[in-house]
């Protein structure tokens, strides 16, 4: 019984981790006033970038465990940095509409991922039958099957790859920086009222760029985790599904606090797979998978009804700042 619960918890955590990465990145971005709807696209690009990097390295033959982690991770960070920089440049410097730019980034990112995912083997004239990085994935991921005889805590801990811990640490660090440091205070000031922050001598442009780009890179790691750990290095187009949008939902659910995001992501993950563990008819699966969105809508409504300052979105969310228009 306890083993079963622990198995469930481990699966929920694995489901939740990509969403947690995405949500942490998006919280950081939104705190600067940028509503980045390109997060699903950025996560996708992060995912395919790590695949491209890993594929190139794996084709070389020898695999060194350290490089096997470093190369996909760096290419993931680079890919997601480039895409979030495009978003940042268009919205911050060129002051383009954030919603439109974000959706364009998502169109581009998902298309980019599916294109290279579907055509990489053809383009590189590789002899591989399908796109898979199973050797590299073994280094990233936890143990997929835990024997029944193992003690209960192993059922929880063994399936978790190291990126799960990385996601928690990043979420806690982002939460700490936002709440307890001077940098975080200034960043929140930029998100609440850029004009006031500007008048106080804070470099609004710098903060917006940094939080958008770093946020995008954190979100991209969600793609890295998904491909390298969760799906064992096997690429298939569109398998990532709506996890990018779930990450944006989680930001609301967590009322812009990364620490709540950790628990929230595991709740989302648990709801996503709950149908495997309780006796429901197959027909009810879509209804179960609807729950994270319903819960998010309820949270959104409750926070707007209660109007508590601490749980509101950043005041300038979605608006661009132009000094002349103060």
């Amino acid at each position, binding site marked *: 019984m306890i083993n079963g619960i622990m198995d469930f918890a481990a699966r929920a955590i694995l489901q939740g981790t990509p969403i947690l990465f995405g949500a942490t990145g998006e919280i950081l971005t939104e705190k600067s006033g940028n509503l980045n709807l390109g997060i699903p696209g950025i996560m996708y690009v992060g995912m395919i970038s790590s695949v491209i990097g890993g594929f190139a390295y794996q084709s070389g033959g020898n695999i060194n465990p350290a490089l096997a982690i470093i190369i996909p991770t760096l290419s993931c960070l680079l890919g997601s940095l480039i895409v979030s920089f495009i978003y940042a440049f268009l919205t911050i410097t060129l002051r383009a509409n954030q919603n439109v730019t974000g959706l364009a980034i998502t169109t581009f990112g998902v298309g980019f991922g599916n294109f290279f995912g579907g055509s990489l083997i053809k383009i590189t004239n590789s002899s591989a039958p399908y796109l898979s990085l199973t050797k590299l994935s073994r280094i990233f991921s936890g143990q997929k099957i835990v024997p029944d005889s193992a003690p209960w805590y192993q059922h929880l801990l063994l399936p978790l790859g190291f990126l799960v811990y990385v996601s928690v640490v990043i979420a806690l660090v982002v939460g700490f920086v936002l709440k307890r440091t001077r940098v975080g205070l200034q960043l929140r000031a930029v998100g609440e009222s850029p004009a006031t922050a500007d008048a106080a001598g804070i470099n609004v442009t710098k903060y917006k760029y940094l939080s958008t780009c770093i946020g995008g890179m954190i979100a991209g790691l969600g793609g890295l985790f998904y491909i390298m750990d969760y799906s064992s290095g096997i690429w298939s187009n569109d398998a990532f599904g709506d996890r990018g949008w779930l990450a944006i939902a989680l930001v609301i659910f967590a009322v812009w606090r990364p620490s709540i995001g950790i628990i929230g992501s595991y709740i989302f993950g648990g709801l996503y797979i709950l149908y495997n563990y309780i006796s429901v008819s197959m027909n009810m699966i879509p209804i179960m998978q609807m729950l994270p969105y319903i819960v998010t*809508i309820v949270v959104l409504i409750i926070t707007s009804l209660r109007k508590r300052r601490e749980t509101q979105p950043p005041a300038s969310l979605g608006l661009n700042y132009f000094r002349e228009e103060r």
Partner: protein
Amino acid sequence: MTDNVKTAVPKEAHAGKTPWVTITKRDGVGLKRRILIRVAAIFAALVLGSIITPLVTGDNPLSIYGTMVKGAFSEYRIWGTAQSFVMLLGISLAVTPAFKMKFWNIGAEGQVLAGALATAAVMVGLGGKVPDWTVTLVMIAAGIGAGTLWGVIPAVFKAFWKTNETLFTLMLNYVAIQLVEYFLKIADKSGSNTVGPSLLTHGRLPVLFGQQYMLNIIIVTLLTAFIYVYMYYSKHGYEIAVVGESENTARYVGINVKKVIIRTMALSGAICGLMGLLLVGATSYSIDANLAGGNGFTAIMVSWLAKFNPLLMILTAALIVFMSRGAEEVSTKFGLNSSYSDILTGIILFFIIGCEFFINYEVHFNRRRGAKKEEAE
């Protein structure tokens, strides 16, 4: 030109520290210049596309654009192109009144699906039990009604409690998608989880002039004219524009802002529902969660690129559809993944989005060294 430039920094005040570049807002840019900048942006995007495409296909750029034209306009594909075009245009028209009001409805995908789902549910539920014309009438009401409902829910919360509409409508998309998945599982008893033409036989909308897509084309043409008149020549359109510019002004002149928000979103949702109705009842006679095919999101960009002008939307929608149909053909020809069109579309969008800056703002480069020299003298 210098008359309508508001200078950001008084030059004398910071003579010693002039930044090397100043950006100023400008109003009243001539139509000619606006068109020129946009055309230049699209051209630049196509050039970039023609640099990237040969890298992955090995073909020369000109022949690729030839393939794209063939993919969009060849005899076998022209009707399909027309169908994609009117659907995208219809959904773009639907989101436009809401955007003009600065209500960021990114839930068109869900509103279309809600309309489609209600239509399919009526066709399955009533088909064969009542006369077909009754089925048709009920499904028209249900399709449009469901789209309206999906649009009005977030509008009510926005109007009364200022609930963030962008996030609310986004979430409702996925609720609609899962409802469709649920419907597929319960409607089909054979266990294949698909609802196709064999199930949706009763109450289909009429096929006009022997051409499958003609009904859609006629309806969307009428819709374009209607939205144009509604936005520019009606009292409602005026109220929408005022609320979009400033809610306080609207309140001051006695416009009932709550009513305008809810009414406009009802219209937006109703048109999306109509598109869902057409997709299921007149086009594919089938339904799945991917029925709207991302058009709900693409429509937002189409509408915004056209600056919410229904007539310009004809051009922007045509451009996007040409890109995606054309790139489909390119990817078939070279055995590449069809998502290639999304990459090209993305690049074009980036350029057009970016070029707006050069329409709205003016960039001055200040010769810093020269200024310093003058001081020294």
